[in-house]
Structures are given as structure tokens and as C-alpha cells.
């Protein structure tokens, strides 16, 4: 059993850390305050090969594997969570297109995702009345000529307004059993009938936009269909499994950023005549947090390893996601506690880490959905 990264993975980790510390970390506070979308840094990440990490070099990807993807998202997450989630989702959009799209669509869009021509990509699954119960979506796609006409409203769509391409799920067969009549489509930015609604005012990860998307008789040609008609739910599940590795990796990064900061603070903060790191109360918070995050790291990397090697990883990805996001949430709460009143102010970054981490137990499947998936897989004998 080998716990070491490969030389290549280590180089990618160093490169990303180096870039993130110089360009992403210094920008994070202002991005949180202004909600400005990090166009320039996303473009630079693409140029470094970080937007198509599991995309074939034939389409401009860097084809470097899922473990490397996980490491990269953790490093970006340590520096700027909003940039991290955008990178994570954009990579997954590229993966889904590579896996299920027609050649023409792949050739058209994958190079533009990989080289940063598109600032981001997005997934439009969630609707106002279909969150955790994704199979209950109501958006429809009706055959019309050599294509489909999409109608419906999507909500909470990460990077919706800045995406070059959006994968949209809609019901194509209303008479089919629940989950069976759904199909997925690639919808390009600017298509007639595709409108961007509000950008949510959020607690954290504020520079990542979270949009309402409205489809009003939005027509797409046949070639924009992903897979076959009715494959939509399967595609969504595949995306979510992979996406959970990304979100677990991101949460890990946020948790590490918080506890690294708080530990450094504790070493230098004096009360009662000595460094507060001498107190067992602080030491136990440090010990527990690093232990939990280390466990999270191994769960995340193992899920990534399984996926990279073409093995089943649904259960492991859910375990990694729920554990990493909850461990990271505990890490940020303890970090605020370690800084005391200062931790509650915007003079220090730990309150931002706390706000940024909360959504990691919500999106890409809530913690409750992860537990549902894990239990289902176990009870099924998986």
C-alpha cells in the first residue's frame, strides 16, 4: 500500500500551491466583499492546465487524473473557496461533455473550457421544487424539428451567468417512470430563450455566482443531446459522484486554511503570560482538527483513486464528501473559537472560512443525501 503522491502529482501540487498563494489568496478577501467574479484568475488557472484535468489532450485537456484534480482543488480551496468551486464545477462540466456529448459538441466546446476562453461551465439540474429529490424536475424538452425546445426554471446554478456552456436537465418523456424520462442537453451561452435570472446573495463563497436560469422556448439541435433520450438521470448521478470528490477536496482545503491560520495565531497569541498554544484546551482543538482533516484527506484521495482507476466509487465519494465537509465545518468553528473575539471580526480571515465552508455540506448533495446514498449502497451489498 502506497500513501505517497507520484512525482508528477507532487509537482502539480507545488505548482498549484505556489500559484494559489501568490494570486488567489491575496484576492480572496476582496472577492468575498465585492462578489466580483474572478475572471482573470480563472483564465490563468486554465492556462496552467487546471480546467480540463481529466480531459483528453486531443481536446486541449491536461489528462492528469482524478487524484491530481483532487489535490489541485484542495490547494485552490485553501486560498480562495469561490475560485475553488468554480474550478471544480467547470472541470466536471468538461468531463460530462467528454463522456456523453457528440463529437461536434466536444470539438466545439472542450478546447474552449480547457484554455479558458469560457470563464466557466455550469450544471442546471436543481429547480425551485426539485432539490435533493432531483428526479422530480419539471423543466421540459419537447421535440421540435431536428431538435428540442426547452422550457423551465432552474435555480442555485453555480457560475450560471458566466458559463460558456451549461448542461441542462429536462423531462423528455412525461409518461415514463420517475427518473426515467429525463434527458440532458448542452445549452450554449446566448442561445435564444435562455435567460439568466438573479445572482443569489449568499453567506459564503460569494464570488462564485449562484444564478436562476430561465428557459423560454429555448431551442437546441439534436447534436446537443447528451447520451440518449432518457439518459439524463444516469448522467446526473455520474456527474454528482465525480463532483462530490471535488467538493470534498474543496472543503478539505477550507478546513486546512482555517486551522493552519488558527494554529499559527495560537502560537503567537499570549494570555496569562504565555502562548495560548501551551494550553491543553487549545492543543486538543488543534489535535482533533488535524486528525479529522487527515482522515478526510484519505477518504477524498481514495475516492479519487478509485475513480481514476475506473472502479466503482459512488459510496466512497459520498463518504468522502460528507466526512470532509463536516470535518472542515468543525475545523472552521474551532478556528474561530481559537481566535476568540478576533475570530468573529473581519480583520481576520477565519470568519470567512466559516462562511465559505457551510455550503459544502449543502451543495452537490446535502449531508443527509450523502448518508442516504451511503446507506443505500451498503444495504445493497456494495
Amino acid at each position, binding site marked *: 500500500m502506497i500513501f505517497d503522491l507520484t*512525482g*508528477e502529482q507532487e*509537482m502539480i501540487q507545488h*505548482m498549484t500551491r505556489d500559484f494559489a498563494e501568490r494570486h488567489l489568496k491575496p484576492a480572496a478577501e476582496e472577492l468575498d466583499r465585492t462578489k466580483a467574479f474572478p475572471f482573470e484568475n480563472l483564465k490563468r488557472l486554465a492556462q*496552467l492546465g487546471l480546467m480540463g*484535468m481529466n480531459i483528453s489532450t486531443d481536446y486541449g485537456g*491536461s489528462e492528469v487524473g482524478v487524484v491530481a484534480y483532487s489535490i489541485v482543488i484542495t490547494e485552490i480551496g485553501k486560498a480562495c473557496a469561490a475560485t475553488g468551486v468554480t474550478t471544480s464545477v467547470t472541470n466536471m462540466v468538461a468531463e460530462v461533455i467528454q463522456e456523453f456529448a457528440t463529437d461536434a459538441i466536444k470539438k466545439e466546446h472542450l478546447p474552449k473550457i480547457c484554455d479558458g476562453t469560457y470563464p466557466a461551465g455550469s450544471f442546471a439540474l436543481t429547480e425551485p421544487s426539485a432539490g435533493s429529490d432531483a428526479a422530480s424536475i419539471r423543466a421540459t424538452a419537447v421535440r421540435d424539428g431536428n431538435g428540442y425546445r426547452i422550457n423551465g426554471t432552474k435555480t442555485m446554478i453555480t457560475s450560471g451567468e458566466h458559463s460558456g456552456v451549461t448542461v441542462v436537465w429536462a423531462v423528455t418523456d412525461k409518461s415514463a417512470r420517475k427518473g426515467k424520462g429525463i434527458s440532458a442537453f448542452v445549452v450554449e451561452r446566448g442561445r435564444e430563450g435562455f435567460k439568466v435570472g438573479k445572482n443569489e446573495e449568499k453567506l459564503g463563497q460569494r464570488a462564485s455566482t449562484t444564478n436562476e436560469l430561465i428557459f423560454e422556448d429555448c431551442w437546441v439541435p439534436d447534436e446537443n443531446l447528451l447520451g440518449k433520450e432518457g439518459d439524463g438521470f444516469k448522467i446526473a448521478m455520474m456527474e454528482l459522484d465525480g463532483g462530490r470528490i471535488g467538493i470534498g477536496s474543496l472543503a478539505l482545503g477550507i478546513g486546512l486554511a482555517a486551522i493552519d491560520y488558527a494554529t499559527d495565531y495560537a502560537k503567537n497569541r499570549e494570555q496569562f503570560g504565555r502562548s495560548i498554544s501551551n494550553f491543553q484546551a487549545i492543543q486538543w482543538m488543534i489535535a482533533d482538527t488535524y486528525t479529522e482533516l487527515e482522515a478526510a484527506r484519505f477518504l477524498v484521495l481514495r475516492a479519487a483513486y478509485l475513480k481514476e482507476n475506473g472502479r466503482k466509487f459512488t459510496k466512497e465519494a459520498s463518504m468522502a464528501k460528507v466526512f470532509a465537509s463536516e470535518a472542515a465545518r468543525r475545523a472552521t468553528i474551532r478556528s474561530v473559537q481559537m481566535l476568540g473575539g478576533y475570530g468573529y471580526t473581519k480583520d481576520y480571515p477565519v470568519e470567512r472560512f466559516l462562511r465559505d465552508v457551510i455550503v459544502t455540506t449543502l451543495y452537490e448533495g446535502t449531508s443527509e443525501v450523502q448518508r442516504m446514498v451511503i446507506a443505500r449502497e451498503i444495504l445493497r451489498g456494495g
Partner: protein
Amino acid sequence: MDIIVCIKRVPETAEADLVIDASKKAIDTDGLVFSINEWDNYAVEAAIQLKESVGGTITVISVGPEENNEVLRRALAMGADEALRLTDPAFEGSDAYAMAKILAAAVKDIPHDLILTGVQADDDGFGAVGVALAQMLGLPYAALVTDIQLDGETLTVHRELEGGLEEVDTLKLPALLTIQTGINEPRYVSIMGIRRVARKEIGVKGAGDLGLSEEAVGAKGSLSRIEELFFPPVGEGAEIIEGTMDEKTEALVKILKERGGIA
């Protein structure tokens, strides 16, 4: 133009809590993160920019154990063509002079029009290897270089001097320059670059391959040796600035201005 860049792998010490080891002559490097010496990174970038404008090859050389392959491979991923690692138990304990001898022996076998080094190393900070190497090779050199212009066989370089002075020199190739930080903006290696060089062979040479006797290198071949390493005692008269962050910043800026630290 064929360029050789000499690079060093050093521990990152700027923000680390350093511990002096039992010998009292070195720091304990356990747990420290190592990377390419900052000055050398600028030297690699300078070489790549020259290659991009006039063509040629870049060879990067580093003295040290297998771990040094990390910094060599990083330089390859940035755009260097060949990498060479010099390693031998006999090299242990070399000072800047002995180190320059090792490098001189290696570069003699490699065609070169220009040799670049960093001004100094993050860890030892002697700032001597580059200029000693130039002397041994009989090359014209310029230290603390902040700008390079190439016109045929002539280099025009800017050097950073004390008190904000800048000097302009011309040198005939072949020459050696020691590169100052800030001369350029070193590129990040891309994943594509990392993948391109993942399996590239890194050459290795020892004392014997370089025709160096054991007496010529290491502690025996050195002119200086480290006697002791210690943290300076905490001085008197430190002024602690109190107040809110804004007040502290304002007070600090005022002091720095008064004492000529900033304009």
C-alpha cells in the same frame, strides 16, 4: 545561444521556525519545505526569455542528492532543455569556492555562450558561487543583474547598486551573470509542461566523471568553514507599537519615513 543555469534546492526559511541542529553549524531541515532558490528561479526565467527571443538551448545544473531532481524537473517543465545533477559523497561540506570548482568542471564539457546563476542562495547567502565560477572559467561577469539586452555577441546589462543606483555594463559573450530577483516575472509551470518532462532523463555526474580529486572538493577543497550558527541575542530598545490596526500602521509608516526607510 546556449545557456547554462546553475540552480540550488534550498529550504524555505522565511516563515519557518528555525532550529539549529546538534552540530551548531547547520539548521535542522526536518519538516522544512524545500524549493528552488528564489534567485535561481528568476535566472531560469531569464534564460527561457533569451531562448525564446534568439533560440538555442538551456541546460540546468544542480549540485546535490536525488531530491534535487525536483528543482531540475521544475526548470525543465518551465522550458529548459537538459538537466544535469552533480552528486558525490566527496562534495559534502563544500563552501562556495569548492562548489564553484565542481560547477566549473561540469560546464567545461557543455557548450555555452552564457552562464546564469542567482545572485545568492536563500539559505547560505554567501553570494559567491557565481562570481567565483566566472573567475575560474576566465569569463567576464556582472553581478546583481536586473536587466539583460542582447545584441549579437554583446550583452548590455543593468546592475543594481546600493543607494538606488543602477549601472549599465556591456560584456562580450561568453559571459556569466548573477541574476537579481525582480528582473522578470517567472512563469508558473503548467500541467502540460510537467507532463512533457515527466519521463525525461536527468544526467548524473560524480567527482570521478568530472575529473575532480577528493581533495579538491568538499571540506578539504574549501577555503572557508562554518564555525558556529546562532540566533542573535534579542537587542534592547525595541519599540512596541500599540493601538488598532490602523493606528499601528500609521505609526509604523511615520517611523519608517522619519528614519529614511521609505520615501
